[in-house]
């Protein structure tokens, strides 16, 4: 005898005709709903039966609710019932039915309980405004939610309500998607999401899954204006289309995510490139398809939840035209979707071949084998395959160019193979230079070989102080070259001090936040001052001494209190800015140069420091060979942060190279004269040290490292802020493991810099 529990028993007692639906589904219900939720749901079913929406609705709710629970969990299913009843009341039974039928599709599209609920709420709000349109609109749920997230969906629908101006006929036409207006609104709401908007979090996601830090490039339109339709990877570099055309909102984010993680699976699990050999385009495509499935399954062994990420994009259905691309999309789905049914013999064979080898999935060779076999079969079936128009499906998969070695020997085949991928090659044209980052051959740095740059005359009006020489560390000989580099202090150009004030105005919100931080930096690190004449608590040691004095007949010292006071900050900081020519580059995704961001950051920094009261200086440097390391003092320790300092900050211009070590030594020498307890040298740099007379990348790096070490022996802490997202390695080499930070979003430097300082000095 089935134990149904009280809720089910009550439901079946009042509505015995539901037994045929409930009893057979009972085991499935038990699997999907924990007991509490189950009873709540069954009571909701009873409520729906009582709401007189007809048996069709109750059955649809039973069926749809079960399906939804499987996808997004049991809780939102209760809300679904409430919305259906409300809809029945405001828009009629047919609308309620349409909602219940659409719900599982919506759940699949939306994927999470919270987004599903948002959608329900939007539907419920719309119903009274467009009752006649609810059913037809809900019938189109799948298509709509493919383009729109719940918020965009509601925005689109409201546009329809508004445009129809109370004319139900026009409204209906809008919701049937049969007017131009409606489609336009749809596309407007489905405003394509750019990869850069989600890049940071998706890269972090890839790092979280596999500690992968693959550099991602944005694949832009080629000369003909064609945007690549698929992602791509090669040699550890990832190319992501800036947008996927016509894909917007949450769905676009999901697509970027699925795509990046798919490539991550390749990077983790694909072996060396397959030689193309004599494979035909169709075989290439099939080997790639099997390889895609193989790496995804390996990835899912560690992260089973990834299936939920990829599955929604596999929409191929059994049946229909048997062209090669269609069959391949069906095979792709058959290999990842355990519930997919397809009795096409070729698809079935592919599935069997693949899952038979489950134990050998770790071996990339199986992709070659299976793909080869399937390619032969498909060839014999004489299905059409047009290599020129073939695009990998589903959309999240990459073009698989990175899997193949087109080899020189195979030049003949290469031409053929390339046609397959022709469309996607263009954007690979060295956009970012040599991606492998192989350093140039190190060359012995021979002093005799260096051109003797004629030094500027000492009476040059631009020179602010007599030049100073510093040694430079040559790691190749393991010694310092004495008096090797020369620092020339120059007068800083002046710009408009007002422009610096405007920067502060622009960042009003940040400044307010910083002011609060400053206030807490001043007060939140209190210290007990002991032996005070007054205070809010007794100083135990002082009391004891006073009592002793009294017993000895002496006059006790009455300073027996302790008081909490702001800890005296005893710290000076020198901010050193790299203003080499490369800081003229624009920061990706903004219209600002690196130097502009440095200037904004410095303005906020100076503003904060002036409030805080810590002594500070701001200097900048660039270099033009070892005889001319230019050094500018924007603000000195003994000068106030005033209009002159601001004007100099505004006047900074980017030029020349980055001889960091020498600049560090000079800055350190200035900072060493500060008599505070701690001294901090903060350096902002956008790349590796380099200079025109040095070809060996390691040379200046090692010199800078030496300089940092020497300063730390003098008790000067050096902290580096790198603006090059790929700079981790050399920054840690120069500044040490803990004493640097990479700004992965350079545009946030202005708000981050002062906050970083406050944290460091806490």
């Amino acid at each position: 005898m089935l134990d149904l529990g009280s809720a089910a028993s009550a439901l079946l007692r009042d509505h015995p005709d539901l037994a045929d639906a409930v009893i057979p589904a009972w085991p499935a219900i038990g699997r999907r709903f924990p007991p509490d939720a189950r009873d709540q749901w069954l009571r909701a079913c009873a409520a729906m039966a009582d709401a007189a929406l007809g048996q069709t609705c109750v059955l649809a709710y039973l069926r749809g609710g079960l399906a939804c629970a499987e996808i997004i969990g049991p809780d939102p299913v209760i809300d679904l019932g409430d919305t259906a009843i409300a809809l029945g009341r405001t828009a009629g039974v047919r609308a309620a039915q349409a909602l219940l039928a659409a719900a599982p599709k919506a759940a699949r599209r939306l994927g999470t309980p919270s987004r599903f609920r948002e959608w329900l709420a939007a539907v419920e709000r719309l119903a009274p405004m467009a009752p006649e349109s609810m059913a037809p609109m809900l019938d189109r749920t799948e298509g709509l939610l493919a383009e729109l997230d719940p918020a965009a969906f509601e925005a689109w629908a409201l546009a329809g309500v508004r445009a129809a101006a109370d004319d139900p006929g026009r409204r209906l036409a809008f919701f049937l998607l049969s007017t131009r207006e409606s489609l336009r609104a749809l596309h407007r709401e489905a405003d394509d999401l750019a990869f850069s908007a989600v890049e940071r979090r998706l890269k972090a996601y890839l790092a979280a899954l596999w500690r992968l830090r693959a550099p991602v490039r944005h694949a832009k339109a080629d000369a003909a204006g064609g945007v690549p339709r698929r992602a791509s990877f090669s040699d550890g570099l990832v190319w992501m289309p800036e947008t996927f055309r016509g894909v917007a909102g949450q769905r676009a984010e999901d697509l970027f995510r699925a795509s990046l993680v798919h490539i991550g699976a390749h990077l983790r699990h694909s072996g060396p490139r397959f030689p193309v050999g004599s494979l035909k385009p169709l075989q290439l495509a099939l080997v790639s398809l099997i390889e895609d499935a193989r790496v995804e399954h390996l990835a899912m062994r560690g992260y089973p939840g990834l299936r939920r990420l990829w599955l929604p994009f596999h929409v191929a259905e059994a049946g229909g035209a048997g062209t090669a691309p269609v069959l391949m999309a069906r095979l792709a789905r058959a290999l990842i979707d355990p519930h997919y049914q397809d009795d096409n013999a070729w698809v079935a064979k592919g599935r069997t071949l693949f899952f038979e080898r489950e134990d050998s999935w770790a071996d990339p060779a199986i992709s070659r084998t299976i793909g080869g076999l399937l390619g032969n079969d498909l060839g014999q079936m004489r299905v059409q395959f047009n290599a020129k128009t073939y695009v990998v499906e589903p959309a999240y998969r990459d073009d698989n160019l990175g899997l193949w070695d087109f080899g020189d020997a195979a030049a003949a085949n290469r031409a053929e193979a390339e046609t397959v991928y022709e469309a996607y090659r263009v954007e690979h044209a060295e956009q970012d230079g040599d991606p492998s980052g192989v350093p140039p051959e190190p060359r012995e740095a021979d002093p005799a070989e260096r051109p003797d740059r004629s030094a500027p005359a000492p009476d040059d009006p631009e020179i602010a102080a007599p030049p100073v020489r510093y040694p430079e560390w040559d790691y190749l000989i393991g010694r310092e070259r004495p008096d090797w580099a020369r620092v020339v202090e120059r007068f800083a150009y002046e710009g408009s001090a007002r422009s610096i004030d405007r920067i502060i105005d622009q960042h009003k919100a940040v400044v307010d936040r910083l002011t609060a931080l400053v206030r807490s930096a001043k007060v939140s690190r209190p210290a007990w001052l002991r032996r005070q004449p007054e205070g809010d608590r007794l100083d135990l040691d002082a009391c004891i001494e006073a009592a002793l004095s009294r017993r000895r007949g002496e006059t006790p010292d009455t300073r027996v209190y302790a008081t909490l006071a702001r800890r005296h900050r005893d710290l000076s900081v020198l901010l050193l800015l790299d203003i080499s020519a490369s800081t003229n580059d624009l920061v990706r995704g903004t219209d600002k140069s690196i130097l502009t961001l440095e200037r904004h950051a410095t303005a906020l920094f100076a503003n904060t420091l002036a409030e805080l009261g810590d002594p500070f200086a701001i200097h900048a440097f660039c270099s033009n060979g070892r005889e001319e390391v230019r050094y500018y003092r924007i603000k000195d320790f003994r000068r106030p942060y005033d209009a002159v300092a601001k004007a100099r900050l505004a006047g900074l211009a980017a030029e020349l190279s980055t001889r960091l070590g020498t600049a560090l030594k000079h800055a350190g020498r200035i900072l060493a004269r500060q008599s505070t307890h701690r001294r901090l040298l903060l350096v902002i740099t956008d790349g590796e040290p380099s200079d025109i007379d040095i070809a060996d990348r390691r040379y200046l790096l090692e010199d800078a490292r030496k300089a940092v070490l020497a300063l730390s022996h003098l008790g000067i802490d050096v902290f580096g802020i790198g603006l090059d997202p790929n700079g981790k390695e050399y920054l840690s080499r120069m500044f040490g493991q803990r004493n640097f930070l990479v700004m992965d979003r350079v545009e946030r430097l202005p708000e981050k810099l002062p906050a970083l300082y406050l944290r460091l000095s806490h």
Partner: protein
Amino acid sequence: MVLDEFRINEEPYYRPVSDEVGLFEAAYAARMPMMLKGPTGCGKTRFIEHMAWRLGRPLITVACHEDMTASDLVGRYLLDAEGTRWHDGPLTLAVRHGAICYLDEIVEARQDTTVVIHPLTDARRVLPLEKRNELITAHPDFQLVISYNPGYQSVLKDLKESTKQRFAAIEFDFPAPSVEAEIVAHEAEVPADVAHLLVRIAGSSRNLKGQGLQEGVSTRMLIHAGRLIARGIPLAKACEITLVLPITDDADVRDAFSAAIAASVA
């Protein structure tokens, strides 16, 4: 006995991760000052409790903080009816009667406080009590142990070289996944598969270290998650409130970590 209240009578559960137990025993035999290095929540405190029990020594723990003065460590005069009475501080107590003294998070203390340990940690093994004009020679069983978290992000807060170099160090890190899962299962009383899943989740947060996270999820946090799960909270929710929310305010990093948690669950 004076230090009875500091004795540990029941074995504190500690799952050795590598050879740390043997190393520590040898160091104790030589009465060598020890430094336990490692990220927060990885088992340093538990380890020293276990070792004190194992060696049969009382354990005196001091949680260091920045208002701590040397008197808080060594002791001070207190008043009583007849006059004054000297009151040993925790360090002095350990030195006199032969306990293991554990200074937890020593970087928090100010440097002028930490120098009082210097004469104790070199060949002299003495503690001068200036106020009392007394020089205590350490009890033969006394040992000084400090903990030190090198991941600490303030450049201005660090141990002095002269302090650091007096100690031998044992490095702690999060244990291998199977071992960590064993610990989580034991401490949180969750089934092994749940513990393994939690440890995998911790792995993805540790992958994010340096990519927006200062530190990955600690064993301690996993135990918190496990305890909630053991009390019927669904895994996703438990992870959200014990792992994701506490660890960062950066929305992108949260999103990445949450998504990785979702990916870990079938």
